[in-house]
């Protein structure tokens, strides 16, 4: 008898080879893969992230690699590595390059072998020609103190990428927890949380965020947290509705019977089944977060001058519109492309998770 069962299991295993577990999220990805515009948006986002991570390799006043004083140095690569948390304590640039007064551009002459970034200017490096038109030297021109605008644009991408990911991360956690609790527990919890969602939704985002920003130091981390704290309502509403729909199904009853606590049921059983429609909302939210950050920086409450961000690049272009109208092109196109990319991904995700839309292309 035991022999029998084991052979049955074996033949069963032989007949259906082990497949990857088909989670809802994986199914969503399979649908998404077929969506051409969605993939296009995704590739823009990945490119943007790549640019943000490798910003010092694209624009900077330190060489990527150079042979200087009989030794090889990699200052720009160290800059990239230093963005990884904790690595910054370990890694340091080799000797002359880390000194503040050291100008790599004049010190490393043409006779030394060196690989330079495409744009040989740092985001904060000033030059003598202010408000220059786009030229071969400065592809997008310079700002009022002669900083290279392309370098600033490239380094500004870091902020936009970070804001999208971090603030929507905060919003997603908050939204799932609050919306999930409302949907799962119902009753008074639901009534209270639903009221809270309604109240927060009443505040126009800029008014709410700005009223908070008056009280705290304007800085990128605060901006991300505040955007996250004000952007969770959409996700919470979705989660609540999904949990309400799912909680009466048999698998939840089974989980309850096997003794799972509410938190475990919510996170391990309900959330994986409710997650797929959330992805679209999160993608749209990221577009909004990028827009909000740029808007805040434009108003002077986000990233502080002279640190580059697309919002304050746009502001300085706006202020010099009479003299150097071309300044406005770079940050405008960058914001536009990013928002478009997130929207394309969001649309594709919504199509991929909506059975009604999937049936009728």
């Amino acid at each position, binding site marked *: 008898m035991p022999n029998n069962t084991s052979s049955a299991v074996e033949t069963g295993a032989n007949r259906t080879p082990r497949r990857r577990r088909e989670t809802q999220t994986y199914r969503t990805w399979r649908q998404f893969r077929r969506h051409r515009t969605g993939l296009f948006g995704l590739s823009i986002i990945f490119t943007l992230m790549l640019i943000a991570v490798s910003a010092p390799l694209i624009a900077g006043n330190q060489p990527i690699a150079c042979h200087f004083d009989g030794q090889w140095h990699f200052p720009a690569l160290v800059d990239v590595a230093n963005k990884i948390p904790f690595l910054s304590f370990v890694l340091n640039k080799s000797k002359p390059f880390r000194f503040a007064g050291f100008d790599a551009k004049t010190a490393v002459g043409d006779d030394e072998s060196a690989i330079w970034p495409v744009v040989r200017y740092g985001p904060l490096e000033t030059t003598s020609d202010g408000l220059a038109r786009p030229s071969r030297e400065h592809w997008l021109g310079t700002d009022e103190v002669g900083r290279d605008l392309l370098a600033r644009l490239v380094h500004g991408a870091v902020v936009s990428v970070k804001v999208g990911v971090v603030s929507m991360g905060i919003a997603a956690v908050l939204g799932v927890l609050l919306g999930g609790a409302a949907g799962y527990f119902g009753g008074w919890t639901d009534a209270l949380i639903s009221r809270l969602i*309604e*109240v927060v939704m009443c505040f126009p*985002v800029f008014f709410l965020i700005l009223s908070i*920003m008056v*009280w705290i130091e304007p800085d990128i981390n605060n901006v991300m947290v505040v955007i996250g704290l004000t952007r969770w309502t959409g996700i919470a509403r979705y989660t609540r509705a999904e949990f309400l729909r799912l909680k009466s199904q048999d698998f939840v009853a089974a989980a309850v019977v096997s003794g799972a606590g509410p938190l475990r049921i919510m996170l391990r059983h309900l959330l994986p089944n409710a997650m797929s429609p959330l992805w679209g909302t999160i993608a749209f939210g990221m577009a909004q977060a990028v827009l909000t950050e740029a808007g805040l920086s434009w*108003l002077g409450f986000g990233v502080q001058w002279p640190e580059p961000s697309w919002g304050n690049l746009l502001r300085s*272009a706006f202020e010099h519109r009479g003299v150097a109208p071309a300044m406005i092109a770079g940050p405008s196109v960058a914001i536009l492309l990013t928002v478009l990319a997130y929207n394309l991904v969001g649309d594709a995700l919504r199509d991929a998770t909506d059975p009604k839309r999937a049936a009728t292309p």
Partner: protein
Amino acid sequence: MTRYVVKRLLLAVPTLLGITIVTFAVVRLAPGDPAAMQLDGTPGGDSARLHEQLRAYWRLDQPLHRQYAGWLARLVTFDFGHSFVDHRPVWDKIAEKLPWTVGLAVASLGATLALAIPIGVIMAVRAGGWFDRITGVGLYAAFSVPNYVAAGALIAAVAVIPIDWLPISGAISDDYDGLSVGGRIADVVRHALLIGICYSYPALAYQARFVRNNMLETLRQDYVRTARANGLSRCRVIFRHAFRNTWVPLITLLGLTIPSVVSGSVILEVMFNWPGIGRLFYASIAQRDYPTVMALSVVSAVLVLLSTLAADIACARADPRIHDAQ
């Protein structure tokens, strides 16, 4: 219907209370010391005076719940206190700016609907045709251009090639008082044109696409085919039978997008120098005029609440099932 309206209004009361609590909590309990931040060179004088003003405004000698209750009691009578900057009553300052923002919002909403509905309907009726495809791509592109980016580009363009009849700053000309009534209206419309376009084109793009998708679904329904089979004219079927079913989701959508429209007013009004509450809010924040900041965040949230209410009631009127079910 009356019962539904009353019920909906009563339900708004806790939300209204919630709005005041959130505003109070945000402003009152946020970390950071306003008097200390005043030291970093912002206009408005020394920190000792601000401290004194804040003490008086908040009645800091009382416990927290009494502070809130006192503030709420004054709020109900539209007493928002006096501005720290020019010492005028805050409500007066807001009341003179409010019509500019509300007027612009209502006008652009009307224009948006007047354009979005026909465009969406034509797209749906001729789905897959050249108009549908070209407009579809165009609307998607328009929807993805953030309105302040477009506004910046427009303003820069007008800075390079000035158009004398198209001002880009302010709401009225210097000689406004000397103009005739017709001249005044024309003057305001001229000033409002560019900011109005920036205000409404994202909404237009979104709504037209929304109308198209909804209409597509409705046109596929059996009752539409029945109506056609009964010999009704195409136009009658589209507008009397099909489009009516798009009204309710459209109104719901409008209610949901109003907060973002009001929110966008801050940057646009600053850019175009439009004398509305968005610019007042920005100026108050820059000058750390706390009573005005608080009053405006309550007022903006109440505006949104009112328009959501209006949208709900309009929905109930358009679809009897909504208020019958309750």
